[in-house]
C-alpha cells in the first residue's frame, strides 16, 4: 500500500518555552491519549489529531503552557 504524509493543523498547542521538562500531566490526563512527550525536546506535543477540545490538558497544566484551539474543521 502506498503512503503519503500530509500536514494537519492540530488543535492542542504547547508553548515549549513554558513546558516543564519531566512533567507529564497533560499527557496523563488527555481522554484520547493524543499528547506525548517528544523524546528529542522533552516537551509535550500532540502526536495525533484526535481531540474533543474538552480541555483537561490546559486546565491541569501548572504553567499555562497548553492552548486548546477548536479543531480547524469546526472553527
Amino acid at each position, binding site marked *: 500500500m502506498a503512503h503519503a504524509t500530509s500536514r494537519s493543523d492540530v488543535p492542542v498547542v504547547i508553548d515549549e518555552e513554558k513546558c516543564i521538562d519531566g512533567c507529564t500531566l497533560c499527557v496523563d490526563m488527555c481522554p484520547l491519549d493524543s499528547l506525548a512527550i517528544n523524546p528529542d525536546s522533552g516537551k509535550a506535543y500532540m502526536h495525533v489529531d484526535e481531540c*474533543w477540545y474538552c480541555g483537561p490538558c490546559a486546565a491541569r497544566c501548572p504553567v499555562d503552557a497548553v492552548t*486548546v484551539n477548536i479543531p480547524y474543521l469546526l*472553527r
Partner: protein
Amino acid sequence: MQIPEVSDRRHLECDVLVVGGGTAGTMAALTAASNGASVLIMEKAHVRHSGALAMGMDGVNNAVVPGKATPEDYVADITVANDGIVNQRTIYQTATRGFEMVQRLESYGVKFEKDEHDEYAVRKVHRSGSYVLPMPEGKEVKKVLYRELRSRNVRSHVTMTNRLMPVRILTVDGRAVGAVGFDTRTGEFVTVSAGAVILAAGAAGRLGLPASGYLYGTYENPTNAGDGYAMAYHAGAELSGIECFQINPLIKDYNGPACAYVANPFGGYQVNGEGNRFVDCDYWSGQMMAEVKRELESSRGPIYLKLSHLPDATISEIEGILHTTERPTRGTFHEGRGTNYRDRDIEMHISEIGLCSGHSASGVWVDEHARTTVPGLYAAGDMALVPHNYMIGAFVYGDIAGEDAATFARSASHPELPEDQIEAAHELIYRPASNPDGPPQPQVEYKLRRFVNDYLQPPKTERYLSLGVEAFERMRTDIAQMGARTPHELMRCAEVSFIRDCAEMAARSSLERTESRWGLYHARDDIPQQDDASWFCHLNLSKDPATAGMTFARRPVAPYIVPVPGFVRPDGVPDALAPQGVELAEAWR
C-alpha cells in the same frame, strides 16, 4: 510493534470488574468496595478526566427532590416522553434514589444550587415536573469522585487502571467471568478473572459522522465509541430500543449543548430564523427533535438559542456556566466566530446520530437491579437501557450495580478462563499490527461513519436501511484489512470494530420495527404511522448462538406501577400496585 503471544499476558483478579471509570463506573466501584468487594476499574483513558463528565457537568437534569416533585410525576413524564414503551420499575429507581444520591454527592463535596431558604433550586424543563438542579461548581464533580476513590478507606479495595482497554467480556456457561483487553500504551495483553462484571462504558457516541467531518467532533465524548454495546452483545446479552437513536439540538459545528437547560431558567429560549418560538416544551425528546428538524429544513430556518434580549449581567452569568463546565471551549469557539451572546444569537443544528440511554432509550437491557440478561453481567450509565437516565440515573445505577454485583461476586466461582475466547480477542486486538500497511483507521472509520449518515439518519426507509446493512457487512472486510503500527492505533482500530457492530445493530433494529415512533428517533418515512397494535412492545436484539448473527425478540411492556394521567395503554394491560417496602428508597417510605 511486537505482537505478544496469547500466553504472554498479564493476569488480574478481582471480585467486581468495572469497565469504564466514568460517572456510573466510579460510583459502582465506590459502592462495590463499601460492600467489601475487591474492585478493578479498567479505564482506557484516565479516571480523573474520563467519560461524559471529563470536564464536569453544569447541573443534573433529573433530580426528584422531596417537596419539589414526586417520583410518580417523574415516572409519568418519562413514560409519556417514550410513547409508553418503558419498564417503569427501572425509572422508578432513578426517581426514588436520586435524592439520596444528591445527598451522597454533597457528602463527597459536590455543590448543588440552593435558594435563599436553603432549599434545592430545582427548575422546570420537563413537561410537568421540576427536576433540573444546577451544580454551580459542577466542573469539580469528577475530581471529587476521583478523590473519594483514592481515600484511605476505599483505595485498599479499589484498583484503578488507566490506559487499559477491554475488548471482550469472557463467559463460561453463559455467565460473565472476566474480560480480556490490552494496554493501549505498551501493547501488553491482559486478562481479568472476576466474580461479576459491570459494564459502564458510556454511549455509542462515535456512530454518525458530525457535519464538520471531524471524527472526534462528536456530541458525546468520542472515547465512548460503543465499546460497551458491542461487548454486551458479544457476551450474549440482550440490547433494546437500538432503533431509538439519540439526536440532540446543539451549537452548530461546535456540537456541544447550547444549552437550553442552562439558559431557559434565565430567560433564554430557542427561536427560528424569523425570531419565533417553535417548540412548546424544551425537554429533549424525539418529538421535539422532529420539530427542530422540520424547522431547520423549512424556509423558517435556521434555529437559534436566543439570549440577546437578556440583561448583560444575566448573560455574564450564563457565560460563567457555559464557558467553564462540561464543554469549556464553547467560549473559544464563539470568540473565533465573533459571536457575542449580547448581540448575536447562537446558531444551532442537530447532531449526528448515536445510541445513548442517558438521553434517549437505546441500550443494554437491564432490570431495576442493573442486571443484564447474562448472569454476573451488569450495565449502568449511558449504555444501560433506563430511558432518559442522564447523570443522576448513571450514579443511581452505578450504585445499584455496585451493590448487587458485590453480592453476586461473594458466592461466585472463578473458573478457568476460556482460552478460545481469549484467542479470538487476541486476534481482534492485534490483527491490525500484523498488517501494518493496511488502510489506516482514520480512513476506514470515516468511510464507515459516512455510511452511517448516508443510510441511518432519520427519516429512515427500508431501502436505505437495507443498503446500510449491506455497507456495514462489507465494512467487515475493510476492518479485517485495517493496519496499525502502535498500541494507540490498535485502540482506535478496536473501536472501529465496535462502531461497526453498533451501526449494524442500529440498521437491523430500525428495519425490524416496521412503524414510526419516538418522533425523529425512529421516523420511518416509508411507514409514517405509529402501529400500537403490533409494536407497543420493546424490541430486543441479541446474538444468535447458532448463527452468530443478530436475532430479535419482542418483550411486552411490563404493567405500569405508576399511573400515567392522560395516557391510555393501547394493550389494555392494567396497572400494578406501586412498589412498597424495600423497593422504595428511604427518602420516600
